């Protein structure tokens, strides 16, 4: 059952990323990417990380992709279309991809994977994760909030139109 779910989710994920790369319309690409992120969330759920799965679906597939779609809405995508001049870039990049995947699979097949038999029942639940987050990782957690407010202020300052004097 779990293997079947894994195959279904990963094939949907890979297929929707292919659709994202191949589609000409940016809005369609964003919708394909949402599907891919939801599938990844399902995979996280399979790997005994229910809290991270929820965070993935709420923040990635929800918040970040809504930002993308807002920006696509504000930009006139047909206006800036210039004729595709460089077609030759396709073959070198496919070559780079091929080399990269061979390297990665070679590395991964030599990886020592630690395995402890029998995970705890509450592994990855919000309660245990929150305990670790607020004790061992308290300072990184607080610094993350500073990072987010800096990004927020930075984005507003960047996009704000200068007042004419």
């Amino acid at each position: 059952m779990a293997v079947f779910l894994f195959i279904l989710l990963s094939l949907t994920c890979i297929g929707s990323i292919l659709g994202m790369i191949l589609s000409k319309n940016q809005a369609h690409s964003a919708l394909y990417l949402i599907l891919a992120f939801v599938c990844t969330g399902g995979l996280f759920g399979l790997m005994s990380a229910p809290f991270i799965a929820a965070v993935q679906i709420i923040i990635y597939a929800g918040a970040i992709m809504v930002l993308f779609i807002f920006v696509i809405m504000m930009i006139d995508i047909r206006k800036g279309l210039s004729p595709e001049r460089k077609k030759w870039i396709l073959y070198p990049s496919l070559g780079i991809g091929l080399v990269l995947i061979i390297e990665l699979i070679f590395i991964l097949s030599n990886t020592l994977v630690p395995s402890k038999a029998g995970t705890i029942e509450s592994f990855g639940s919000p309660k245990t994760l929150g305990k670790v987050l607020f004790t061992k990782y308290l300072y990184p957690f607080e610094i993350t909030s500073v990072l987010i407010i800096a990004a927020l202020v930075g984005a507003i300052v960047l996009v704000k139109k200068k007042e004419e004097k």
Partner: protein
Amino acid sequence: MIPIYYFLILSAVLFVMGTVGFLIKKDLITQFMCVEVMLNAANVAFIAFARSASSLNGQIIVFFIITVAAAEAAVGLAIILLVYRQKKSIKTEDSSLMKG
């Protein structure tokens, strides 16, 4: 129990798809989406290792990666909007002022 290697192979495939997509696409928004796909591939690998080591540290790192990705998306999209305002286009070929 699914073998850990399946997840690692899936993560490698996702990462390579993100890389190739970044190289062959020609508009800034889709390239940015490909960067998100690469981040996501790293997340899959982290979660897989966290489960195989029964350690929560991997999941915490994924939590932080997702937060940083949110901040990065906000700033990156603001920069894309600025490029669009200056060049009236989001094609990478149209922003080649420094090409010489």
